[in-house]
Each structure stands twice: as C-alpha cells, then as structure tokens.
C-alpha cells in the first residue's frame, strides 16, 4: 500500500499520483496505527477541501486550528481583564448608563488600599484560608495515611469520606445553617449532650467569636476529602522498595515516615495546598449562605466585599480596582508558590 502523505504530514489530494511527491513508500507491515488513521482521513477528505488546504505550511495549519480557541480566550478572559483594568481608573458605575465616565487616575486604588473595611476583609480572608488549609492538610493527610493501610473495608470508608466533597456548596451552606441553629440544630444539641451547656446558650453563626470558626468547620468538613485524595495519590506513588531498603537499614517507622513518606508525598501536599488556597481565597457561596458575612462584618471575606462593592453599591470603578489588586495578589503568590513547588519536585 502506498502512503499518501508527504514527510511533513501535509495533506494532499487523494487522487494525486504518488510519484508527484517525495514519499518513501511504506508497506502494510510497518504502517503504524497513526498512519492508518491519517490515510483514512486523507481518503475521506473531499477533494475541493484538500485542494484548498494545499500550499499551507504546517505553521499556518496550526494557526488555523488554534485561532478559534485563542479568539475565545481573548474574548472571555483577556478582554474583560483589560477592560477591568481600564475601568479601575475611572468613576464608572454600571447602574449609571447616562453618566459621563471620567478618568480618576489612581484614586480608586488609593481608596481601596486606605479603606480599613477592605483590610478587615483581607484579614478575615487570611484567617479563613490559613486555618482551613492547616486543618484540611492535617486531617486529610492523616486520613490518607490510614486509608493507605488498606484495612478491611477501606474502599467503603473512602467512599463515605468523599461524600461531603460531592455536595454543592449551596446545599452544604443551607443544611449547616440548620445544623448550627441554636434551638433545633444538631450541632448545638450534640455539644450540649456532651458538655451539659444549654443548646440555646451559644450561637455558632451569630457570635462574633464563634462565627469565623463555624465557617472554618464547614469548609474543613467539605474539602478535607479532596485533600485526602491528593495525599492518597502521593502516598501510593511511593515505591515499595524504598521502605524495603529502609527496613534493611533498620530504620524505625518514625524515621521512615519523616525520611521517606513526607518528602515523597510533599509535592502532592503542596499541590493540595495550592488548590485549596486559591479556592478559599475566592470563597463566596458557602460563607454567604452560612453567615452572609455577619454578624456585622465578622465573616465578610474579600469576595463578599467585592461583590457588594460591584453589584450592590454599583461602584464599578472601585470594585474593578479591588478586583485587580486581588488578582495581582493571588497571581503573584501563586507564582512564587509554584516555583517553590517545582524546586521540591526537582529534588
């Protein structure tokens, strides 16, 4: 069988004589599966189309294929970003279509950075991100370590543990709101059962002291299984021979844990930290459903402040400036972190 491809892989007319091209004939015996597929594609390509494509370079064809994707990316991601940067230097308000748009220079940035409420929201976000990640890593890794022991019924328990992660944040927010209800909520009832404290005597969502922890508990409950999965993948990727060698060297279990398990699983743990940190930095839905940012502004994380600024106060220019600041912060931190992650992986 004669191949109908030039070495460059460019498609040709199926009816063109093979002798016109610099093609090394191949036989059935050395035709790969890929070649067969390519031949089939050539055969089914209509002659006019094949004719039109003729003469295009590989680079041109590549551009032809990726142009729609790039156009979409520009339209959906890049253009709004550039537009938001532009708006952040104006006094634009989305609810004032008839008002003139004036440039205000760096005023929006100055106001955002000098606003104590914004710094309070950033502090609240940092508190939320730090504690959720710490707890999720500790519990998630511990669970993964236990599941990795492959005890009887471990597959069943893995599935059970994963259930919270499969729920929608909206559902989780709503039912935890009921669980935290001081008069009829199960959480207060259980606490009361073990401590004797009357269930109505404390409010998880209404107390300034407890509400930040209430949202941390819910996020940890929901997303620890996700961290566990990533850690489990890390643990299962460690070759057994390392432990066997350690056994031969009479290394203790404690020493094996710190010298083999943790370093080998570290890239996975760091990846989990990265995913969870980005996710929780922009946490919105669950907190809105649980506390709405309250009591007062106690649990108002940055994304809630941003939403209120953009779609309730309608100060679009200022909201854009805040969004850009958040974007730069997350992007910068994530980049530094990814570099650190790469270093760990290269060890």
């Amino acid at each position, binding site marked *: 069988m004669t191949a109908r491809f030039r070495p460059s892989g460019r498609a040709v007319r199926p009816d063109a004589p093979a002798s016109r091209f610099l093609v090394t004939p191949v036989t059935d015996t050395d035709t790969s599966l890929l070649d067969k597929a390519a031949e089939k594609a050539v055969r089914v390509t209509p002659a006019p189309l094949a004719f039109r494509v003729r003469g295009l370079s590989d680079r041109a064809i590549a551009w032809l294929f990726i142009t729609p994707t790039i156009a979409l990316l520009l339209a959906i991601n890049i253009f709004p970003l550039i537009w938001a940067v532009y708006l952040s230097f104006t006094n634009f308000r989305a609810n004032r279509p*008839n008002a003139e748009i004036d440039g205000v220079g760096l005023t929006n940035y100055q106001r955002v950075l000098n606003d104590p409420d914004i710094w309070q929201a950033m502090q609240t976000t940092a508190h939320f991100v730090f504690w959720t990640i710490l707890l999720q890593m500790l519990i998630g890794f511990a669970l993964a370590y236990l599941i990795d022991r492959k005890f009887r019924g471990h597959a069943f328990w893995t599935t059970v543990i994963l259930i919270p992660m499969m729920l929608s944040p909206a559902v989780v927010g709503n039912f935890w709101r009921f669980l935290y209800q001081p008069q009829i909520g199960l959480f207060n009832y259980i606490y009361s059962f073990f401590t004797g404290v009357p269930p109505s005597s404390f409010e998880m969502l209404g107390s300034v002291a407890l509400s930040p922890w209430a949202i941390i508990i819910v996020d940890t409950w929901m997303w620890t299984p996700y961290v566990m999965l990533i850690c489990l993948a890390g643990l299962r990727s460690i070759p057994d021979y390392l432990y066997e060698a350690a056994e031969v060297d009479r290394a203790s279990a404690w020493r094996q844990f710190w010298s083999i398990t943790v370093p080998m699983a570290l890239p996975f743990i760091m990846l989990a930290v990265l995913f969870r940190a980005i996710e929780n930095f922009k946490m919105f839905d669950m907190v809105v459903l649980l506390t709405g940012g309250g009591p007062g502004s106690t649990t108002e994380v940055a994304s809630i402040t941003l939403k209120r600024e953009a779609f309730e106060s309608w100060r679009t220019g200022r909201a854009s400036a805040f969004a850009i600041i958040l974007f730069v912060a997350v992007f910068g931190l994530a980049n530094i972190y990814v570099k650190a992650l790469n270093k760990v992986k290269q060890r």
Partner: protein
Amino acid sequence: MRKITKALLGATTALTISAALPSVSQAAELTLCWAAWDPANALVELSKDFTAQTGTEMKFEFVPWPNFTDRILNELNSGGKLCDLLIGDSQWLGGSAENGYYVKLNDFFDKEGIKMSDFAEAAVNAYATWPKGTPNYWALPAMGDANAWFYRKDWFAKPEIQAEFKKATGRDLTVPATWAELIETAKFFNGKEIDGKKVYGAAIFTERASEGITMGITQALYANGFKYEMTPGKYDMEGAVNSPDAVKGLEEYKELYKCCTPPGYTDAYMGETLDAFKSGQAAMAMNWFAFFPGLYKDENVGGDKIGFFVNPKGTTAASTLGGQGISVVANTDNMDGALAYIKWFAQPDVQKKWWTLGGYAVHNAVLTDPSFKDSQPFAADFLVAMNQVQDFWQEPSYAILLQAMQKRMHDYVVADKGTAKEALDGLVSDWTEVFKDDGKL
C-alpha cells in the same frame, strides 16, 4: 430546480411566520415584576379582571425579598426586557428616573385624566415623585405600606399575666405607646413560660444582606426625631444623622435586640419575624402591614389571638415607610399595554377591590370611605401609620447609602462593634463620601 425553489420559498415563509409569532403573542401579554409576598398573590387575583376586560394575558415575575433588589436592578441596569411593568421600591425612584429606566407618566396622566390628588399625599410623594415632592411622576402609587407591630392579644389578656405585669412595672399591661414601654413590655415577656413554652419579648429586623436591619432601626430612629439633613436638600448630615436623639434611638433598638429576641436571631427579616410569631415564640413582633391580612387569618395565632399597633412614639410619632408604586419600564415592547394596565389599575373600583383582596390601596376612594377603618382590624392603624411615614434616601446612589447603613448598624447592634455614636459618626462619614462623589457636596 423548480422543486428547490419551492422548497426554499416554503422554508422562508415558515421562518418568517415563526419569527413573527412571538411578537404577536407579546402584544397580548404583559409581564409584571414585583416581590414574592402575600400582596403579590392578591394582585394575581385582581389582574384576572384586567385580562377579562382587555384580553391581555398577565405574566408575573415575583422575586423573593432578599434577592428582589439585586435581581431587578440587575435587570434594569443590563437593559433587560423581562418586565413591562414594575412595582419597585420607593428608593429606586431617583436612580430609575435619572437613568431613564422608568417612563415619565405626567403626559399620560393628563391625557387619561388620572389625578394624583385622588391618592393619599404621603403615598404620592413617596411612591411616585422624583425629585421627591415635585410634580414629576414616575409611578402610580400601588401599595401603601409601613412598618408596624403586632402582639399576642390573648397573652396580654390573661389575668395572671396582667397581675404579674402590674406588680413588676406598676402600670397596666397595655399596647406599648412609647419605645420605653415597648422595651419594658418585651423584657417582661422575655424568658417567661406561657402555655408550657418559653417565649421571647420581641422579634425585630436584624438582616444584614439587603435592607432588613436598616428598616428595623429606622423605626427607633424616626420615633426619636432622627433627620437625614439639618436643612432639607443641603445634605448637611453632621448633627442630624448623629444627633443625641438618633444615638438614643439606636441604643434603644440595640437594647431591644439584646434583651428580648429569640436565640439565633442575628440575621432576621420578614420571614424570620413571621416564623417567630407564628410558632408562638414571640410576644410582639415588627413587620410590614402587607403581612397583616395573612397574619390575621392564621389558624394558630390569628383572629382573636392577635392585635396590631403602630410604631410607638419616642420624642415624636413616626413610622418607617414601605410600599411601592407601579411604573412602566422604558424598555418594554408593549408600551400601550403597560399604560393600559396603569389606567385600569387607577380606577376607584379596581382600587377598592385591591383593598378587599389584601392589597393596600392608597386611593382616596378607599381611604376616605367611612367604612374603611372598620374593614379590617388593622385598617385604622394603617391610616395612622401612613400619615407619619418617613422614608430612606431616594437618591440615585441609594444602594451605596443603604449598604453603608446596613454595615454600620449590623456592626454596632449585632456584632457589638463600637458605640452608637461611633456607628452614626461613621455613617455620616460614609454618606458624605457618597454625596461628594455625586457632586452634591
């Protein structure tokens, strides 16, 4: 070839007809947007008459209160065509008028002989005019409303409770006439066991996200003489918004919240207040008049068990304004149909039926009817309240002004942040910045 031509012709005709069909059906259809609450159901009933008379089908888009502002303002701001008619909050008037979202109705009113003097003056000012109080009409007053109170009349009537109250306070147990009495009565009931159940003093508004806590607190502020400006129209808020009277009003509201609300009552608005009362937990509660017909009909707490009263006095008599006007959305594809609905709705007979179905008509034909006061157990209170209502800012920037107040008030009342004076000073500072940005200061 002829076959192909025929097929093309057929396809084109079909496409043309199918494209035309929606516009034909749109012409005989109107969508009215409002909040999802009891009066909306009454309006659905009422509008059946309009459909019977004109053949225009009425569609309704009712949005739950917590999302009402967000949803509808997003719709208006994005130039959406969802609503032909909108019963929007009074505070939206300024923005909607200046941004061209509502149709100005003066010419239409003149042409159709609809007179604003036929409606209660306070309602016209609040629900129809922008700039406020001027004869520039952007809506027809549709639903009068104010924040008021209701209580467990059966508990108040129990001899043993009356005796206990007399002993505790030295006065008879009656409907509170002042904010001091309101707090005293709430404290008396709070924690008491009645009919084998622990009850609480009062269910009040504390909601953070939309407008709840502001609508509750302004009851106390207005009653204590709170003013937005020292000189009306000058935006000189220092000394008015944070006056000693305003500080006192805010402190009273916090006292009521701290002493006497049910547990977990940190983010409560209309629904939660109704729940607390209907479940027999609260001796008194605040809410809008709009809910009173439903409450009176309630099997467990309605009828003889419930009583109603207007907002108690502080240094003055005042109530927080609710209610809305009905506007024609400028973006509508069915302007004639929408205007026809307004014309129909303004008729005295329709307004009377509106009241009987549970809507709060503010047409003089209804309000001045001698039988009005006795038509419902809360009708007389409604008249009193509507004569003493005060409204929040109706400025185009009302959303920012409201958000600032929601934050400052919730921080102080629920989250115990700072003092009442600090909260109000902060509010003056926030509002000053807004008006400076708007070029009004």
